[in-house]
């Protein structure tokens, strides 16, 4: 026997609220990890509680034609994250430092040039700044796509946008990243 879809479960929870617990059991690990990536473990706990409080309250508005509730949960979480831009920025910069360290270790293991390793220290903070400075909608689409590995369709569901808009946001985000990385790279070279 196949288990009921999220849409079935949420539909049933309208009359039997307890049924909604299954949505938590299916997705909470994923959504908590998502929030942890974005704002760190400590802030994630509070936001995660808020996420499921809102999801339960708004379960009537869930579009029953969508089998999985996960994109919908991502969407609610993305909205909650808006108030946490500052801690996101801090976390991005800390992640950049870590990424540089890992990159360095990787390259040492592969005995590549130390000049390339030095670059990593300069590169990742620029990536962090570039992501942080993307317009809200583009950053959100980019991170759902790149970090959460959602399909275009699921990013569209999460952000309640037409899929075409998601495509154009992602391509703008790519272009802006390329541009920002390129420009700052040149600046850095000039300032030496």
């Amino acid at each position, binding site marked *: 026997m196949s288990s009921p879809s999220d849409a079935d479960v949420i539909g049933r929870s309208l009359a039997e*609220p307890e049924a909604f617990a299954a949505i938590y059991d299916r997705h909470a690990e994923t959504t908590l990890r998502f929030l942890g990536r974005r704002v760190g473990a400590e802030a994630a706990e509070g936001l995660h509680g808020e996420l499921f409080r809102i999801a339960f309250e708004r379960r009537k508005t869930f579009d029953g034609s969508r089998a999985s509730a996960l994109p919908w949960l991502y969407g609610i979480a993305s909205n909650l994250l808006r108030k946490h831009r500052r801690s996101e920025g801090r976390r991005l910069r800390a992640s950049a430092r870590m990424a540089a360290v890992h990159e360095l270790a990787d390259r040492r293991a592969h005995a590549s040039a130390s000049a390339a390793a030095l670059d990593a220290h300069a590169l990742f903070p620029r990536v962090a700044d570039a992501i942080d400075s993307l317009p809200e909608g583009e950053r959100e689409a980019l991170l759902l796509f790149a970090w959460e590995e959602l399909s275009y369709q699921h990013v569209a569901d999460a952000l309640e946008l037409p899929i075409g808009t998601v495509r154009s946001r992602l391509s703008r985000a790519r272009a802006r990243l390329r541009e920002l990385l390129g420009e700052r790279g040149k600046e850095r070279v000039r300032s030496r």
Partner: protein
Amino acid sequence: MKPIDLAKKLRRDAASDPAVLDRGRAKLMAQIQRESEVRSQPTIIPQLPYHDLRAALEFLERAFGFREIPTSRVEDERGVVGHAMMEFGANGVIGLGGHGGHSALSPKVDGVVSQYLSVYVPDVEAHYEHARAAGARIVMGLRDQFWGDRTYEALDLEGHRWRFHQKIREVPQEKWNWSSTDPDKP
């Protein structure tokens, strides 16, 4: 390196603690429970008359812990509240209406109480302390009743009489002892 791949390199998982998931689940279940409770519609709802509904709503919330049902309030264009409802506990609901409506009179002026209301609370001693501190007039202190409840009685700001109860022990009916000296006995 492509921009998306660079962005991926900054993905960093936070430490995940299973206790966080458990706490989150417990919180959600409590919320679900509250909603289930609210959904059980009471079949009898006392309607109490007040001269000043706003003051009554404020007092009943502050002193007794009732909550106004947000969607229930009826207000005219001058902001005068004509009717409102409050809930308490699993499915306790009261209505508050104006003095004189449906021939029901507030005891504030007329001094007559034609009924008192019994309310079950989880911790009657804490409730007593809280209500007293909030200015409720205690008309009968805490006492243990022969049928197993601990109770106290208080007047609200217009003189409606409330009796708060907590079941503290099981007493079989054959052991009930309603003595002639019982102050509750008329």
